[in-house]
Each structure stands twice: as structure tokens, then as C-alpha cells.
């Protein structure tokens, strides 16, 4: 089939079974959009027109995480491409399969500082799994296949394909690409090595106080069922990282909730007291482990990860298992069944129950420092929306309140910028998630500061009819920084006061979305319940006191034991 380069890109997207792309056209991608025009007419490749390329990237990311398939975004050369950067960095840190297609100035102009030229391949190389620049249309089929293969295999991550404008016009014989090879890249089976499993099993059988710490890798590899099976067989309580939320239903008796700087008391204390840590699909991030050299000091550690470079990167471990989380957990559970299951009731499970009881009252108390209590807002949200709803978050206090107090029941229903911590992620990610799962209600828990970074894509939500609901926890400050200023800077609140604008309900209405301001818990609950099936995007403005803190908190550089409960 003799086609233009632009058409070849579209054909390649079809071959990858891509149904939707998020983007904004520009000078260098005019020929690409011309090829998309026919798709729009046939209705077979949906394009969602964003209002900012950063949002297009976050949408593709939210789509990828909700659906478990690659998300695709596109931008023009220069500023279009550089606007994608934050979104690509988020996907990189959280190992999300996003493929970005950027236009580039024509080949003869590359390197001449042409209008809207940026060295996007150079810019994104450190934050992608791979960045291609196509130099000839004949490379398109193989390159596109390679891009999706790289993005969606082994440890997943973003890939960028940069295409000069004149390449879009060049003719090419399009044939679906066969298997492609890139250097030394091997798609791994993910099977654990039998010897590692044997050693891990030995540690499991010797342990008295095991704890499983599950990270985002468990969700990425769809390993939740295997995780729960292993936990129940051992039995071992399960703490999750921020990225691991949803790996085990948080109402499961063995679930301890999130571990780390803003982790739950029981999760952090269990990590301190455990004699065996099974860390799976997590990477011992500083926000997760507190003081690195003290983490798991008295425990032996089994580390399961698909990426061999994660083994020993932050923390030395006793038994590394380089494998897919699902396969490793499943195999470990199978071996454990063969050697026999241990007794269910033991000292450790009593201790865990005791820890949970000890902190129960703290989590149940609803007292607030004026306005509405974030804890109770989260509980009302959980009880007012269907179990299968998807929740995305902004970054900051809103995110940590959600992580601490919003119980996630299914994998891929809690989507957050964990690694990069990019404010503004939640709202566009909610749009991507809703496009991926139109039959699920999607709620974005956001802060006022975070939401204002990407709210212009309310226009996208309204025009493209993507009805998600945003809860703005509205304290009119950059709350997390303010909290640190309160706790560690002697209340010197430097540049964290945002002032009393805007009116979020009116802002939503200006876009043609529904805006609701609530003042009490009853109004909040009815607003949430009403918006579950809403056909237009909804913004619910929820007042929260600026003095409200995320607690408990492990101060930076401290061990998980040195937690602060009041402030």
C-alpha cells in the first residue's frame, strides 16, 4: 500500500489497536492531522482536542493506567513538544506506557533554529524509555511498532517519536511491521528464577512477622489476585506504597493501607517490627521508607521487580527476584501451598490487630480546624459513589488525604502522580480515565492550587463530553508547602497564600460545566450522589481550613517510628 508518511502513522496506530489519541495540532503536524481528518469522518480513531499539551499527555497517561493499555498523545514541534514534557516525566516516574508523537521542522531545517524548532529528542531522552527521530518515511512502520513494544513491555514507560514535517508528506510502502529489534532490548518472559524462589520460600518459612509491601508494579502487572492469594496463604499483612493503592482491596482484613511519610501508623509500625519484608513492584523511594539506611534494619528483605536496575539501587536486599510481579507472587504462593500452609492465628496477627485498634480512633475522629474535615470528606466520597468508580488526584495535601482516608477497592481505580508529584495531573488524568472507561464514574480529588494548573481543560471536558467530577478541596493556600512551613519553618508562610479567587462554581459554569459550592457534609453528600451519573463535567468546591494538616507524618530523614501525630 503506497501511502503518505502521515497516513502510515495512522495505519500504524490502527495496527496497534489504538482507539483514541489526545493532542493539539500545530504547524508541523498539519499533514498528520490531515490524515486524521478521514478517521474522524469514519469515526474509527477518536482524537480528543486538548487545550494544553501537558493535559494531552496526562490524559494519555490516565487512559493508559485506567485501561492497562498504551495511551497516545500528540503535539506539534517546538512549544507543543516542550509542553508535553511534564506529562512525559510523570509517565516515566510512574512507569506508564505513553507514546508521544511530535511534529518536527522539515529535515533540511533541523539544527538551524527554525521557527518552532526544539530538540525534543534531546530534551526527553532522560525521561523516556526511548526517543526516536524518524529521518525517512520508510522507517515509520518499524519505528511505530518499536515504540509501542518498548512502551508496553518489561518495565513500562513513555516513548517519543519525533517526525519532521516533510516526512509526513513523503510516500512510503506501508506494510504492518513484523517483529522489530532494538539493540539489546529483550522482551522478558518475567518468569522468576527457581533458585530465587527457593531462597525466598526459605525466608518466608523462617519468618515470624512477615509484611508484604506492594507498589505500582503489582498494578502494572495485574498481580492483585496473586498478591491477595499469597498474603492469605502466609498469612501476611499488606502495606502499599502510594502507587500500590488498590493492589489489595483496602477493606481486606490483611490490608494496612499506605506506608511512608504520610503512611498509616499500622503500616509504618508493621514495617518497623517485621522480620521479613516482601517488597514487590516498589523501589524503596525516600517518601516510602523514611530514613533509608534504617528501613527494614531488623528484617530480611525479598525484593521482586521486573527491572534488574532497581535491585540494590536504593537498598541492599537479601533475596532479589527479577521477575514479573504476577508470576513471582503466583509461583511463591504455589510453592507455599506445596510445603503446607501455616497456622492462621499467631502472635504477629494479634500484634497487627492491636496496632490497627490503637490508631482506629485517630482515623475515625472527624474534628476539623474549621470548615469541613478532609478525613470525613474522603469517607463521604467513598460511601456515596459506586465501588468501581475511578479516583484520580492532584498533588499535595489533597493527594495525601485521599491516600490516607479514601479506601480503594480495585486495582487501576486510584490514579495519581506518585513519583514526579506533578500538580495539575488529577483533572486531565480523570478525563483520560473516563475516555478509557466510559461506564465507570470518575472522580478527581484535587486541591485549589493543583486544579488551577490545568483547569483550562474543562473546555475539553465540556466540548468532548467527558463528564468527570472534580472535588476541589479548597483551602486557598498551597497547603502542603504551608504545612511544612508551619512544622519546620516556624510558621513563616512564604508565598503560600493564593488569595480568595477564583469562584470555582462560577469558573465551572463559565465553561458550561456544572459548578457547586457546598458548605456542609449533607450538601456535599447530595452533590456527590447527584453527580455520579451527570452528563456534564461537575466541579464541587469544598471548603477546607488552611490550618488542616496531613497527619500522621514522618518528618523527612526520620525513621518510620518517629512519626508525628499532632500539629
Amino acid at each position, binding site marked *: 500500500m503506497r501511502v503518505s508518511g502521515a497516513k502510515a502513522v495512522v495505519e500504524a496506530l490502527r495496527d496497534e489497536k489504538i482507539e483514541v489519541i489526545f493532542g493539539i495540532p500545530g504547524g508541523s503536524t498539519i499533514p498528520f492531522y490531515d490524515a486524521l481528518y478521514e478517521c474522524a469522518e469514519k469515526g474509527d480513531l477518536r482524537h480528543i482536542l486538548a487545550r494544553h499539551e501537558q493535559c494531552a499527555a496526562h490524559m494519555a497517561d490516565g487512559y493508559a493506567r485506567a485501561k492497562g493499555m498504551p495511551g497516545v498523545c500528540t503535539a506539534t514541534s517546538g512549544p507543543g513538544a516542550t509542553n508535553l514534557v511534564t506529562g512525559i516525566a510523570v509517565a516515566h516516574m510512574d512507569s506508564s506506557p505513553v507514546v508521544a508523537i511530535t511534529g518536527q521542522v522539515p529535515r533540511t531545517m533541523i539544527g538551524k533554529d527554525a521557527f518552532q524548532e526544539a530538540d525534543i*529528542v*534531546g530534551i526527553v*531522552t*532522560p525521561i523516556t*524509555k*526511548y526517543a526516536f*527521530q524518524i529521518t525517512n518515511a520508510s522507517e515509520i512502520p518499524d519505528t511505530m511498532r518499536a515504540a509501542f513494544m*518498548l512502551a508496553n513491555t518489561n518495565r513500562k514507560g513513555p516513548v517519543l517519536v519525533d517526525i519532521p514535517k516533510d516526512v509526513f508528506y513523503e510516500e512510503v510502502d506501508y506494510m504492518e511491521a513484523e517483529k522489530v529489534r*532494538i*539493540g*539489546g*532490548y529483550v522482551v522478558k518472559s518475567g518468569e522468576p528464577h527457581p533458585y530465587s524462589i527457593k531462597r525466598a520460600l526459605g525466608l518466608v518459612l523462617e519468618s515470624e512477622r512477615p509484611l508484604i509491601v506492594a507498589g505500582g508494579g503489582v498494578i502494572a502487572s495485574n498481580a492483585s489476585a496473586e498478591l491477595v492469594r499469597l498474603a492469605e496463604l502466609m498469612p501476611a499483612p499488606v502495606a502499599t506504597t502510594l502507587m500500590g493503592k488498590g493492589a489489595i482491596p483496602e477493606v481486606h482484613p490483611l490490608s494496612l493501607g499506605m506506608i511512608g511519610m504520610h503512611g498509616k501508623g499500622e503500616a509504618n509500625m508493621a514495617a518497623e517490627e517485621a522480620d521479613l519484608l516482601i517488597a514487590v513492584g516498589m523501589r524503596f523511594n525516600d517518601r516510602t521508607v523514611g530514613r533509608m539506611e534504617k528501613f527494614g534494619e531488623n528484617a530480611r528483605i525479598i525484593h521482586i521487580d521486573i*527491572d*534488574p*536496575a532497581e*535491585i*540494590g*539501587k536504593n537498598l541492599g536486599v537479601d533475596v532479589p527476584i527479577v521477575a514479573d510481579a504476577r508470576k513471582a507472587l503466583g509461583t511463591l504462593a504455589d510453592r507455599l501451598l506445596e510445603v503446607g500452609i501455616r497456622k492462621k492465628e499467631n502472635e504477629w496477627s494479634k500484634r497487627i490487630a492491636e496496632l490497627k485498634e490503637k490508631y482506629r480512633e485517630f482515623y475515625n475522629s472527624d474534628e476539623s480546624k474549621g470548615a469541613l474535615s478532609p478525613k470525613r470528606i474522603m469517607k463521604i466520597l467513598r460511601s456515596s459513589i459506586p465501588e468501581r468508580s475511578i479516583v484520580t488526584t492532584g498533588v499535595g495535601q489533597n493527594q495525601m488525604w485521599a491516600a490516607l482516608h479514601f479506601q480503594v477497592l480495585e486495582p487501576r481505580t486510584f490514579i495519581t502522580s506518585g513519583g514526579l508529584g506533578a500538580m495539575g495531573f488529577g483533572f486531565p488524568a480523570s478525563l483520560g480515565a473516563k475516555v478509557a472507561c466510559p461506564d465507570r464514574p470518575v472522580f478527581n480529588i484535587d486541591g485549589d492550587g493543583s486544579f488551577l494548573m490545568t483547569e483550562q481543560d474543562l473546555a475539553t471536558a465540556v466540548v468532548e463530553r467527558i463528564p468527570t467530577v472534580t472535588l476541589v478541596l479548597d483551602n486557598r493556600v498551597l497547603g502542603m508547602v504551608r504545612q511544612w512551613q508551619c512544622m519546620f519553618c516556624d510558621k513563616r508562610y512564604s508565598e503560600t497564600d493564593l488569595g480568595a479567587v477564583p469562584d470555582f462554581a462560577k469558573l465551572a459554569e463559565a465553561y458550561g460545566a456544572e459548578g457547586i459550592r457546598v458548605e456542609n457534609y449533607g450538601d456535599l453528600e447530595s452533590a456527590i450522589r447527584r453527580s455520579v451519573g451527570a452528563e456534564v463535567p461537575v466541579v464541587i468546591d469544598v471548603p477546607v481550613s488552611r490550618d488542616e494538616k496531613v497527619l500522621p507524618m514522618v518528618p523527612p530523614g526520620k525513621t518510620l517510628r518517629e512519626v508525628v501525630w499532632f500539629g
Partner: protein
Amino acid sequence: MAEDEMRIISALVEDRPGVLFKVASLIRRRGFNIATITVGGTEKEKVSRITITMKGNAAIVEQLVKQLSKIPDVIKISELEPEASAFRELALVKVSAAEPAKRSDILNYISIFRARVIDASKDSLVIEVVGQPRKIQAFLDLMKGFGIIEMAKTGIVALSRGAKSASAAD
């Protein structure tokens, strides 16, 4: 092996634009401190060898090797044990040699070190010396006494000793 012993990392990479940039970018981004890096051709078309030397303990080198092996263009990468590998560096040094007495001393050292004069003028010599870094350093230390005008080193290239090849698996 001592903490600050020289380590040699040898990588076979696809010969395509941007690969050196990717390798160098990763080294910078992850905060590794390298001593030398060289790039050149191999027995195979479209395959280049990058040789990196650095000082550091085993854990740091292992982490660098693991991170570099994640770059898809890297075909094969391993650490070469200095005892089990042949490695060489080349230096060019321009020495002032106006006085005849000095000049003959320099020529003596050149012969001892099996170096070569590759250019000569009335007032100076350009000398090529090849060998292990220690030998080159010893030669340069001697030349300092005569006055080094300028100097250039290539960085280290290395191969493992014996019949096996890093790319044998292909």
C-alpha cells in the same frame, strides 16, 4: 579489590545517531563520575564499542552497568577485570626542546618508554606514547621537567584477554 581501583566498563552499542548522547546523559543524570570514555568501531558494521573507566566500588559500577543496559541501543555491556584484559591509552605530548642537550635527554626517555617522535620543529617535539595509564603518567611526569607545551590523551580502549568475545553470543 580496593575501593578506588580503576574499573573498566565495555559496551557494545548500535552505531546510530544519538547513542553516545544517551549514554553520556544517563551517566550525568545518575550522578556517576567517570574518568574516561571512548567510542569507536568494532569488527562488526553498525556496532560501536564504548569503553568507560571510572573509580568506584563494586556496587556503584554494578549500578552503572545495570542502568546502561536499560538503554535499548546497548547490545551488550560488562565490566572488564583489569587483570583479565588488555587496555591501552594513547597520549600526544608537545615538549619544548630548544637546547640540544635537553633534546637528547628527551630522545633517551622516548627510547626507554618505546614512545615515538611524530613531529619535530626547531624548538619542540610532538611525541606519541602508548600504554597503560600508569606508564603514560610516568612518561608525562618526566616530560614535565622539560616543559610540556600541550598534551592530549585518548582515554582507554580495552578488550578481554583470551579467545572469548563480548559479542560472541550474537
